[in-house]
């Protein structure tokens, strides 16, 4: 949830609470004076604005959806790599590591000064 969406949500909730309190005060005074007028326009507007803001924040701040087709999802996993890959156990099997190739790679890396290597 980003800062922007969280701000919207909190602003909406506070504003909704404020509108509720205003409506309560208004109804208390109206009861004391024995009249039954409509809710003032500003309270109505505040309520609607608050709820729209909060819903906007809620939708913006929700987790991103994931594509459901296997081919699309597998493409995403390939691009990102790492822990999300469900076939990782099959692709990286330590029993099948080519230790000589790894050693050669390491020797070259060490000869080159041991800097950061871009993985290819």
């Amino acid at each position: 949830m980003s800062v922007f969406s969280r701000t919207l949500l909190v602003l909406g909730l506070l504003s909704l609470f404020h509108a509720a309190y205003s409506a309560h005060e208004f109804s208390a005074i109206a009861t004391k004076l024995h009249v039954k007028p409509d809710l003032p326009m500003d309270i109505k507007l505040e309520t609607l604005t608050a709820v729209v803001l909060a819903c906007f924040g809620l939708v913006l701040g929700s987790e991103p959806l994931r594509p459901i087709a296997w081919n699309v999802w597998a493409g995403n996993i390939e691009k990102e790599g790492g822990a999300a890959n469900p076939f990782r156990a099959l692709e990286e099997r330590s029993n099948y590591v080519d230790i000589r190739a790894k050693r050669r790679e390491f020797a070259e890396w060490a000869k080159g000064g041991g800097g950061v290597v871009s993985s290819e």
Partner: protein
Amino acid sequence: MPPPLAESHFLLHPLVPDNIAHNVRVLSNIRSISALLLGIAAGILGLESLAGFGFYFISQQLISSLFWFILIENDAERYFAGNVVPKGSANTKSVEGREGKRTGAWRDVWFGGGLFTEGLSGFVLGWAGVGGVIR
């Protein structure tokens, strides 16, 4: 005998069940939280009977449209399952007719996610509770 249309379609184009469940959960989270907020708003506004339910359904459709344009970006089949219908003509003898395609995922977005169940009950809870406390 050839397998049913939906079955053969999902053999050719498999779906990820985890991701379907994740997307439905995101939608129903949004629906249930916003339904409670809408109920509080309806209570403050002092809506009664049909006006309140009308307020709920119209506002939920506005939220659906936010969801549709912000999160789904107008491509519902990418994120929701829908159902399988024959591709092209309904003639099951042709290859096209047997293959099928997914469609109708918009229903899962606009009417799914607990719009009539969890969302509605949360709305009524907020509506009655706040309406009773304020007045």
